[in-house]
């Protein structure tokens, strides 16, 4: 990545006293949070504590009522093409009238990729998420896991510096979920993208993240952060049996139970 642009100590994304009030209701109390370039940050917390809201602030879909979200040192003023979002409800986030190829193509069209270059790029992206065989199928003909893969392929087409993922695997079965976790880890490692990953699943957060941010509700605020000192690449069996994994899992479970009490 362009290591010259910023000194490595400067975070890529910085929340400076960001607070949000929607419709007279305080959703987020002032938040201070730094996310480093290339970092994999997972966010957990009880339902309604503002995880999605935090993600939307980075995406520029919401603008803070107080403070600023800085991206590369500049305030986020709206969505930008190098920040990609993987939505939880893949069924609604794909265009049902376009084939898998067509859905990936949409991102390339938005980027202004010349028509002649698109087919090769699309084929490569679909192959990367294991959908090469299904290029001509419509989303309605794909399984949930495949649809989510397709959404990820579309996001990768943006060649994003930041990948925002909002409970992307929440609706998938355990096997598919684990396969996709490893795929996302692989993609993040190979692209060097910064990942902001919202999840309900504490184990998923520990398994994936460099850091786990825990939020507290009413109004939403950062309750605590946990560094995840687990070796990479992660492994579904070895990592989940690692003493550090078990220790973190215990800590986080206790923490969440306390927060919900």
């Amino acid at each position, binding site marked *: 990545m362009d290591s010259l642009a910023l000194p490595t100590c400067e975070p890529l994304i910085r929340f400076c006293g960001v607070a949000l009030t929607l419709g007279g209701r305080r959703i987020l109390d002032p938040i201070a949070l730094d996310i480093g370039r290339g970092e994999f940050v997972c966010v957990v917390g009880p339902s309604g504590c503002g995880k999605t809201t935090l993600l939307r602030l980075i*995406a520029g*879909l919401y603008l803070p009522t107080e403070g600023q979200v800085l991206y590369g040192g500049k305030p986020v003023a*709206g*969505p*930008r*093409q190098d*920040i*990609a*979002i993987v*939505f939880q*409800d893949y069924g*609604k*986030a794909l*265009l*049902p*009238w*376009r*084939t898998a190829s067509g859905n990936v193509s*949409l*991102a390339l*069209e*938005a*980027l202004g990729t010349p028509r002649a270059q698109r087919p090769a790029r699309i084929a490569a992206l679909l192959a990367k998420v294991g959908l090469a065989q299904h290029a001509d199928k*419509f989303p*309605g*003909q794909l399984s949930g896991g495949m649809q989510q893969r397709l959404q990820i392929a*579309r996001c990768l087409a*943006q060649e994003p510096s930041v990948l925002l993922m909002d409970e992307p695997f929440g609706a998938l079965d355990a096997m598919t979920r684990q396969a996709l976790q490893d795929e996302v880890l692989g993609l993040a490692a190979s692209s060097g993208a910064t990942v902001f990953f919202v999840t309900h699943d504490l184990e998923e957060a520990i398994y994936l993240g460099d850091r786990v941010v825990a939020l507290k509700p009413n109004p939403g605020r950062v309750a605590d952060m946990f560094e995840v000192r687990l070796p990479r690449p992660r492994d579904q069996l070895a990592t989940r049996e690692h003493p550090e994994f078990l220790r973190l899992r215990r800590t986080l479970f206790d923490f969440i139970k306390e927060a919900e009490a």
Partner: protein
Amino acid sequence: MSASRILWFAASILVGLCLVAIWQLAADARLVSPVFLPGPDKAWAALERGIASGELLDKLLGTVGRMVWGWLLASLLGIGVGALIGISPAARAWLGPTLEFLRPLPASAIVPVAIAFLGLSEGMVLAVIGFGALWPMLLATVHGFAAVEPRLYEVSRALGLSRWEVIGKIALPNALPDIFAGLRLGLTVALILAVVGEMLASREGLGLWILLSARAFRAPDLFAGVILLGLVGFASALLLSAVERRALRWRLPPG
């Protein structure tokens, strides 16, 4: 086609044939005076005669042309204005009340207005068809544009689609199923109004042919015209269905 569909198709043909047979029997038994009700044999003969002489073909082309042009006019206007209203709250606010006032007006009510402005001309007939067939298209388009999944708007923002791309690549395809429903309804209305318009303005076409045949007690000719009209409606609906199936094939079940 699956076996059950073939069976249904065969059954529907059979029902049609039965009705024709009953018609023939009723005519042969002279249940109704042959002056008013000729048998299908006589109607068919009249149809053949009219087509052979080229006379009925001319009328057919006149009516179909009117229907198609009026329908296209209504479609363009309906989809264009509908898209505008669907996409822009300002346009909805400005145009909404006017449209709500115009919409319930039956097309027949604006015929005198159209005659006053355009005379008993081809333009008048087209205007009436256009007005009548406009509403199904307009309302369907507005609905289709307004019913875009909000998530898709967020997706387009995140991808950085331009406003025009959002309209052309998200809103319009999203409205397409509704638009097709509108096109189908509009087609029916257009055929009805083409016939009525011809009768009123004395334009060459099947409608006028039917009217004049009735006045001259040429019942077989009258029925030949009615049969042709039925075929026009049937064929145009079939054609539209084929286009629709192709355009909306993403909605078909897997396979």
